[in-house]
């Protein structure tokens, strides 16, 4: 019985967070976790952090004070448009995705060790297009829905160790829980999938080196998480239900980050990160396999491949922090990450298109409290599917998809 308690708590904690996950902006990743990181455009690898080091560079956990607890989140407001070839434009239904974060960190006495634990949304994506024209060139007037929701949360125990006064190392274990559902023209020519879930483990290793009073450098490596969804249900447009559904080929990618921070003046901190996200080996062809139909005349097995073939992503993040007073810091940042979605395989169901982000934020300190806020704007980016013109293999040929997003980040931390 005792053996079930800890895994049970992990699963329950992650499930509490999962329904709240939503759209992310570097592929499916958030550009930064926490309002401090977000305010600096996600440039946080070599920047001191508190609890949010749990979701960033774990080595930065060593910069935490005695004990700190942080609670916060982000509200994401995506805006999307889908214009099928030869059809009219459909706007995404209004959506708000709350993305929570909770964390606790402390140094163990005066030792070299710091520890922490946190739960946060690593990312996800989601669209909700209603009454989209279904291949208007072939079936004029036919309309149906496109909806997707992918959520991925992580529970992360983290440890950091001061090897020397300048070198710090850290590691995070990620227990991840993912959910997925989608509607692919479920009432006309397609199907609906719901309740797919997966539990997965991965890790992150980070280092930070303080070169001198002004310069510090850092790096992280994140292992990939193979996410094998199962336990779902698929319903075809004709009403056949498949009770056993799984999805293969979906992986959260490995990632390498390197960053530098420079204290230009006592009040001004500049930071820059470069990241490589290996989407090309993570998202290729995702295959949904459905078995156990409730109709004997239906095929026993249904295979639905989604050819995605995402590209690797290079992310550049630049941020600045200025201390107006000892109690008020302001931040600004810029983040660019090339869209991993290729035009040939563009789908309005998974359009991770935004590339350019501008951010601004502040932290106000009052006694032992820190109040953080950040705003992110992801500029509109559009792509048109220019892949295989055969509508039977590429139903979204010629579709133009646009994507933009606004995000508001909040965080409250208490040091004690």
């Amino acid at each position: 019985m005792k053996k079930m308690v800890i895994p049970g708590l992990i699963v329950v904690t992650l499930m509490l967070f999962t329904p709240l996950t939503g759209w992310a902006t570097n592929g499916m990743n958030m550009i930064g976790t926490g309002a401090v990181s977000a305010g600096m455009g996600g440039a946080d690898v070599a920047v001191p952090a508190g609890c949010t080091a749990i979701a960033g560079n774990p080595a930065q956990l060593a910069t935490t004070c005695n004990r700190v607890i942080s609670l916060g989140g982000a509200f994401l407001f995506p805006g999307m448009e889908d214009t099928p070839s030869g059809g009219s434009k459909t706007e995404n239904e209004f959506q708000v995705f709350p993305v929570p974060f909770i964390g606790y960190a402390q140094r163990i006495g005066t030792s070299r060790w710091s520890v922490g634990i946190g739960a946060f949304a690593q990312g996800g994506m989601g669209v909700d297009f209603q009454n989209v024209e279904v291949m208007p060139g072939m079936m004029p007037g036919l309309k149906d829905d496109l909806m997707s929701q992918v959520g991925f949360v992580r529970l992360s125990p983290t440890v950091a160790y001061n090897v020397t006064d300048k070198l710090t190392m850290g590691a995070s274990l990620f227990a991840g829980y993912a959910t997925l559902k989608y509607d692919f023209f479920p009432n006309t020519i397609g199907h609906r999938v719901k309740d797919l879930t997966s539990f997965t483990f991965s890790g992150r290793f980070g280092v930070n080196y303080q070169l001198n009073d002004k310069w510090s450098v850092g790096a992280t490596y994140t292992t990939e998480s193979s996410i094998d969804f199962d336990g779902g249900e698929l319903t075809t447009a004709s009403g056949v239900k498949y009770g056993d559904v799984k999805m293969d080929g979906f992986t959260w990618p490995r990632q390498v980050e390197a960053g530098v921070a420079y204290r230009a003046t006592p009040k001004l901190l500049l930071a820059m990160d470069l990241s490589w996200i290996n989407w090309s080996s993570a998202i290729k062809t995702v295959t949904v396999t459905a078995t156990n139909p409730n109709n004997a005349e239906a095929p026993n097995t249904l295979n639905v491949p989604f050819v995605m073939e995402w590209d690797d992503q290079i992310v550049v993040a630049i941020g600045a922090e200025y201390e107006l007073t000892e109690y008020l810091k302001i931040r600004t940042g810029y983040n660019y990450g090339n869209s991993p979605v290729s035009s040939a395989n563009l789908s309005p169901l998974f359009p991770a298109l935004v590339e350019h982000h501008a951010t601004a934020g502040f932290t106000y300190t009052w006694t032992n409290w820190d109040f953080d806020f950040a705003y992110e704007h992801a500029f509109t980016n559009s792509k048109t599917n220019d892949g295989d013109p055969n509508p039977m293999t590429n139903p979204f040929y010629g579709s133009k998809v646009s994507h933009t997003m606004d995000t508001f980040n909040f965080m409250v931390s208490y040091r004690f």
Partner: protein
Amino acid sequence: MPTQSECLLKKLSLCLSADRKEKWIYFLPICIAFVVCLLLGCPARLCAADTLNYLDYETALQKGKEAQRPLFIFFTSPWCYQCTEMKRKVFQNKEIVSILNERFLLVEVDVSQNKKLKEDFRIYFTPTSLFLDIHGKPIIDVKGYIPTNRFRKLLRYVSEGLYKTTQFSAFENK
């Protein structure tokens, strides 16, 4: 291959009919500006005009008795980020430095080196700011980062002997 109309930077006349990889060119000016800022940006003035005059503990205790001045002991460790922050901000304030040098005897203790003082004063956290009277008896200790204004109040509270009649919390809230 994206068309010109898809390019965000078209309005800045920077857009070329380039594939995704060549979009890197757009960030060249930003990167150059960043590097220039790093190299030519405001020179750091991390060294204040005045510095704190630290003594070893025994010397400070003896001189404190002679000069009738209390002791300020700053417990730190090499990996203590909040200690660095206090040194960078609070201990760079000229007024603070002046008050500390003139009205206190100062000791900095690296708890990773000086285990005896760490044990004697039961220091379990850095930074800890500890004030002792002229007999070496603790007056008050404050854990963690102390903002400049609060630290200024703390110095006044100790140096003016207000601790003999008032709790610091009451003094602070006046």
